């Protein structure tokens, strides 16, 4: 009879190998779908790579896409580590974006640029954190599972944004299109490279990934939040205030997702529409899982996911394969990663 034994320690090679194996499996399975579309599979993947990295423009576009994914990926990673099931990053992203647009508009804060940009980032983060604190309170006070409440709030947040940009925050100069008033020039993030959309938001995201890694590895809070996730009963027994830890984790997680929204407004669009996020919040979950919840890993996982999306757009134009193939690849990588992680955690013994 075959038995599965849990390994005591997962080697670094397994931790790096698992996501790579998962991605290969996902690409192979998605290859079947590309073949069904009548396109040559390897050529399609070659075009995706060229589309994502083939020119200066495409590289900067891919990196621009990576920035929000790092932040929503971190949002999921820090929450999941403490077993806080925040599936609401999509909604937190949107309210963060809305807060930045409202505070950064002509009628918002009047601050010089060096103060305005951090203030708007903070505003977005606070909005995102508040949206997650609601479901957390419901869990702590009334025992309501946060998975469903955070999921449902995504739809409420989207409707709220829609209401605001068709109402008080509507841009009167947008020819009737539902979009918010633009942020002032001082609120726009400086570009990393001239003649591109790449902005300093990428540095903020990478910096925060390093900071989160440091906090998790080196601080009491990092250790406590990990303990809260691994074994809540033991953590409570060890004198760790679970409520306090979960509130802090929720502020961090919701804040990161809200910040992602704020940065997307200040760095790319300059205003809010209801289609500002092509699923950044949901995709963040995949990013976090591909990284096995490791903050540094999140940076690389986000880069992979951004590559798929930017690459698929250009491959789709060339070969006529629907660009939804990127979403399929990303979803398949998540499922394959779960299996790969469990195989790395167990060894088969006869």
């Amino acid at each position, binding site marked *: 009879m075959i038995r599965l034994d849990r390994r005591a320690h997962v080697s670094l090679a397994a931790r790096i190998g698992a996501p790579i194996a998962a991605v290969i499996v996902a690409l192979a399975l998605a290859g079947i*779908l590309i073949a*069904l*579309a009548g396109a040559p599979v390897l050529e399609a993947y070659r075009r995706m790579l060229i589309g994502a990295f083939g020119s200066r423009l495409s590289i900067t576009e891919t990196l621009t896409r990576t920035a929000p994914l790092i932040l929503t990926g971190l949002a999921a990673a820090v929450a*999941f580590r403490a077993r806080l*099931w925040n*599936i609401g990053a999509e909604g937190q992203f949107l309210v963060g974006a809305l807060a930045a647009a409202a505070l950064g508009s002509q009628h918002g804060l009047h601050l010089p640029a060096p103060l305005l940009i951090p203030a708007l980032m903070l505003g977005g983060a606070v909005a995102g954190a508040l949206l997650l604190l609601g479901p957390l309170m*419901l869990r702590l006070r*009334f*025992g*309501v*599972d946060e*998975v*469903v*409440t955070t*999921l*449902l*709030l*995504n*739809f*409420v947040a989207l*409707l*709220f944004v*829609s*209401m605001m940009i*068709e*109402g008080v925050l509507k841009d009167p100069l947008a020819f009737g299109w539902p979009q918010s008033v633009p942020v002032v020039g001082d609120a726009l993030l400086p570009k990393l490279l001239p003649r591109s959309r790449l902005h300093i938001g990428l540095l903020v995201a990478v910096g925060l990934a390093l900071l989160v890694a440091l906090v998790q590895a080196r601080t009491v809070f990092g250790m406590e939040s990990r303990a809260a996730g691994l074994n809540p009963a033991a953590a409570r027994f060890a004198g760790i205030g679970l409520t306090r830890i979960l509130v802090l984790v929720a502020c961090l997680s919701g804040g990161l997702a809200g910040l992602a929204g704020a940065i997307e407004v200040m760095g790319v669009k300059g205003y809010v529409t209801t289609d500002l996020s092509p699923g950044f919040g*949901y995709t963040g*979950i*995949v990013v976090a*899982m591909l990284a096995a919840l490791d903050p540094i890993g999140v940076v690389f996982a986000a880069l992979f996911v951004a590559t798929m999306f930017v690459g698929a757009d250009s491959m789709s134009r060339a070969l006529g394969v*629907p660009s*939804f*193939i990127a*979403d*399929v690849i*990303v*979803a*398949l990588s*998540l*499922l394959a990663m*779960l*299996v790969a992680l*469990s195989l790395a955690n167990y060894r088969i013994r006869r």
Partner: protein
Amino acid sequence: MMEALDIFASAGLWAAVLRIATPLIFGTLGALICERSGVLNLGIEGIMTFGAMIGWMTVYHGGGLWAGIAVAALSGAMFGLLHAAMTVPLGLSQHVTGLGITLFASSLSYYIFRLSIPVSGSPPTIVPFQPIAIPGLSDIPFLGEALFSQTAPTYLAILLAVVAAIALARTPLGLAVRIVGENPHAAEAQGIDPIRLRIGAVVVGSALMAVGGAFLTLSAFNSFFPTMVQGRGWVCIALVVFASWKPARALLGALLFALFDAYQLRLSHVVGKAIPYQLFLMIPYLMSILALLVMARRARVPQALMQPFRRGER
């Protein structure tokens, strides 16, 4: 004010309640069957989307309406099998696997749809299920129009809730499902194979979810468009808690929820532009959260829900 109350006197409202409730009844029963066996299935949102797409596609390419329902059910069963394979024998996180299934099933739906239907200004349509007038009953004034002029899947959904209630409470199979969801080790001692039973329950439950999705494209509307499921799957997950994991209450919860949904739609027309329409559209989601809040402490959760079963391990 009177106008707001007049809405309740229109037969159209009550007919809409049954129509809106139908996909929720299928979805909630599906999720309930999975959870009674101990498996949370967050794949529901994606499985409903895929059912809506593949059901519609079957009819669009010349299949019958019931063939559309059957193909949807089969596709749901396949996704259920995938979810079960990962969460039951492998014991992977039910939360994350379910979300993965939702992402996979919905992106695959959009991909297949876009592949076979070229982009056009107006989405192609099919001829959906037509209302069946039940002889005698449909002629009753008001009640006939309100309750007895629905399409066939709506009657099927209500029948199914009754069947599920009886099957869970009164049959040996139902008892086995319940034991496995409460205490799989005790079930095993009784000679029941918890792994097989859970896989079976998730497959059947997921098939029902997909039928709920197919109702959207084959009866409620006549075309498929992305994001059309609009969180109905998540609402179903909330309704299972509201129903305290009981099929009869699930039926009641779905009807109650549909009543709010149908009412808010008509109320927003009466009120006009004075209140933003988005506030009315938020009501269903906020109601679901409220339902969770009311029932959270009172509901009888299956004791082994989300606990993987490993033979010889406690």
